[in-house]
């Protein structure tokens, strides 16, 4: 299962990047990037998974005493939480940029925004 998640994650990253590289529409690029970052999150979580163990939450089933034998690694999960929130921030910013860019040139085609070059 870990491998399934990992491979899916990597595939999503590659698909997302492919979309970002080949779609000229800014919004579509943004969508593609959000798919790629979902893939990243999947990879992160999958790396921390240990087969046959439970979530790192102590309750009736898992006590503090046997926690280290029963739970999976909490660190990747903490990292992914952070990454998700940051990803949202960047996406929101890209969207705002897209809107502002559209306002200046009335197009979302990224190849039209090449006033700066060379």
């Amino acid at each position, binding site marked *: 299962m870990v491998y399934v998640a990992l491979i899916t994650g990597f595939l999503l990253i590659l698909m997302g990047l492919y979309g970002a590289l080949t779609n000229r529409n800014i919004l579509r690029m943004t969508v593609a990037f959000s798919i790629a970052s*979902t893939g990243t999150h999947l990879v992160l979580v999958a790396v921390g*998974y240990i087969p046959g163990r439970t979530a790192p939450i102590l309750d009736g089933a898992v006590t503090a005493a046997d926690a280290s034998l029963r739970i999976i690694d909490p660190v990747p999960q903490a990292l992914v*939480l952070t990454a*998700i929130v940051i990803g949202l921030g960047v996406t929101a910013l890209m969207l705002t940029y897209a*809107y502002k860019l559209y306002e200046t040139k009335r197009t979302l085609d990224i190849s039209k925004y090449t006033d700066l070059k060379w």
Partner: protein
Amino acid sequence: MSTVMFVMSLLLACAMIASAYVALRGQSLSMAVLAAGAVSLFASVMFVLLAAPDVAMTEAAIGSGLTTFLFFFVMGRVKGGKDD
């Protein structure tokens, strides 16, 4: 147990890849955004399978929920949202 989960994860993986394909190649932009949201949603189910409920909640609320709405807010402002 493990086999069930394996099959489930396989199905989820296929669903994610398929949604991602739709998101990237789909005709309309709203379709793409929704499909991307679906990828997130499937991912959050996957996170549950991977014993990461915190992440699952976050991905569902933020990744598939808020992000999708943000996209729609902006798409509402931008006429050129169609493929051009």
